[in-house]
């Protein structure tokens, strides 16, 4: 298809400017976050900055409310990721290579939580929890998160399944391995990196989620909710800046990891978000 013999050896200059300018636009606000986290000033966003300090980083890690928000978000993301790994892998294993009535409907249902605006998922969960008299808690948040994380794992795993030759599974059975042995010795090693990538992305998705969370959290404060509270009535500007940087880092690292894990297998690692 796309040959390597240099046809269009060089892009027109204006196109190059637009492309790299666009990338600059995409990354500029991220840089701003990293810049302001070290800002000396205590209660304003004035630019140019007056100076840099590491003071706020120390202070942030001494704040119990920040630490408990981080811990809550980590716990929720871990649980949601585990549930998503199990459910997403099962769904992928069931749906690839099998054709049956209702298959399309199931696929659609898996995608729906991220295809529909988050506010719908959020308020739907909220109204259902209320009706069932389930008070908002750690569990209600985790249940909501797991629901939209499934599709991320599912996408990664089914893409890997499709690229794995089915004859590997047949060869294993042919040589005497039953279904469980085949899963352990052949299937699992084949999908391991896809599972890892899917898991990392699901973790990042959950860690950062705010739209559904505000509906299911009640009085629980996850890290994004802590941030939102700060934004609507700004108080601790410097602490907020540092927390913003932490959240940014935690959500950025996974994309590098997922990319290197799925590289060469042509997975569109982030296609789930």
């Amino acid at each position, binding site marked *: 298809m796309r040959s390597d013999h240099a046809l269009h050896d060089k892009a027109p200059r204006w196109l190059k400017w637009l492309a790299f300018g666009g990338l600059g636009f995409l990354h500029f606000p991220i840089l701003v976050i990293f810049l302001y986290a070290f800002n000396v000033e205590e209660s304003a966003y004035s630019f140019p900055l007056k100076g840099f300090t590491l003071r706020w980083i120390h202070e942030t890690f001494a704040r119990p409310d920040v630490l408990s928000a981080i811990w809550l978000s980590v716990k929720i993301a871990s649980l949601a990721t585990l549930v998503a790994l199990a459910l997403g892998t099962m769904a992928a294993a069931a749906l690839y290579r099998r054709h049956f009535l209702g298959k399309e409907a199931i696929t659609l249902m898996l995608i729906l939580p991220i295809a529909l605006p988050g506010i719908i998922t959020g308020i739907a969960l909220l109204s259902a929890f209320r009706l069932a008299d389930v008070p908002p808690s750690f569990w209600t948040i985790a249940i909501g998160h797991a629901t939209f994380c499934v599709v991320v794992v599912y996408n990664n795993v089914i893409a890997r399944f499709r690229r794995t*030759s089915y*004859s*590997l599974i*047949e*060869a*294993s*059975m*042919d*040589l*005497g*391995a*039953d279904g469980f*042995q085949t899963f352990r*010795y*052949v299937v699992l*090693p*084949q999908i391991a990196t896809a599972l890892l990538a899917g898991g990392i992305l699901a973790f990042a998705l959950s860690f950062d989620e705010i739209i559904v969370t505000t509906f299911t959290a009640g009085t629980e404060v996850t890290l994004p909710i802590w941030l939102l509270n700060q934004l609507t009535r700004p108080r601790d500007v410097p602490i907020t800046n540092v927390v913003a940087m932490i959240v940014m880092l935690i959500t950025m690292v996974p994309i590098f990891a997922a990319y290197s894990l799925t590289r060469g297998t042509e997975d569109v690692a982030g296609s789930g978000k």
Partner: protein
Amino acid sequence: MATAVQFQDVSRVFDKVRAVDGISLSIEEGEFFSMLGPSGSGKTTSLRLIAGFEQPSSGSIKIFGQEAAGVPPFQRDVNTVFQDYALFPHMSVLDNVAYGLMVKGVDKKTRRERAEAMLDMVKLAQYGERKPSALSGGQRQRVALARALINQPRVLLLDEPLGALDLKLREAMQTELKALQRKLGITFIYVTHDQGEALSMSDRIAVFNKGRIEQIDSPRALYTRPHTPFVADFVGTSNVFDSESARAVVGAQTPFSIRPERIRIVDAAPATDAVVVRGELIDIHYLGSVSRYEVAGPHGKLITVVQANGDEEVSRRLEPGAPVTLAWERHAMHLMTV
């Protein structure tokens, strides 16, 4: 000798497509048996039915006298060499070969010894620690063979195992496979669409067409006495005369076939009881050791003639457009039933 595999009126239907359509056959122990046919003729499905990857829609399959229906592949005394080799990419060559022993719970030491012995047998003793991706196509093929044989199956299934190799390597592997089969004395069931491959290795060949078997015979019988026009055409090239053109050429209605190399281009009609046909030379293809001639016979019937090239070769003195006389012995013709 015992019967290794027996099909009795076996069909396999996929969404109304009859991939295998009422096949009966029996394959003997120790036989090199080929399933030959074009793609979609049902030969690979038949192989997968024996391996246990597919279940018959109707009919019965017996492996060494035991009904195979419902027996999963991991409980069949049959192993397969896959078309794409299906080597486990995350395991070393040695672990690939030892896999069948590992899942049966054979201890590590024995496993290793046997796997090394198998690798030695396929002349890859030095390659055990490599990953399959570091091997050439021919080497992978041998690993697949060693892996399939380590469980000492009584039947080895081979699904176009040489398809991905280049011509030279393919020919060398044909010789090796045949030698291996003789040495082991087990049944090989070999699926291929390459008639040359099937003819050179097999004890018997089943020719598949549209889910059915056209003929099961030894290579020689298949070549010299094809029962149907399809077999005559698919196994080697052949001049097939239907009843109409048969009447025009020999004056009898019975359809027959004649191999191109059995036809001579002659200067004058021979005195013997040969069939003589006059026609016009259409085209000459020089193929090195032989030349192929396309001749338009009576009613424009196209006849292919193959003759060895030599000092006397016809192509040196004839040009397309020239009138030619063809002759063949009556006993070289094969009358067909269809």
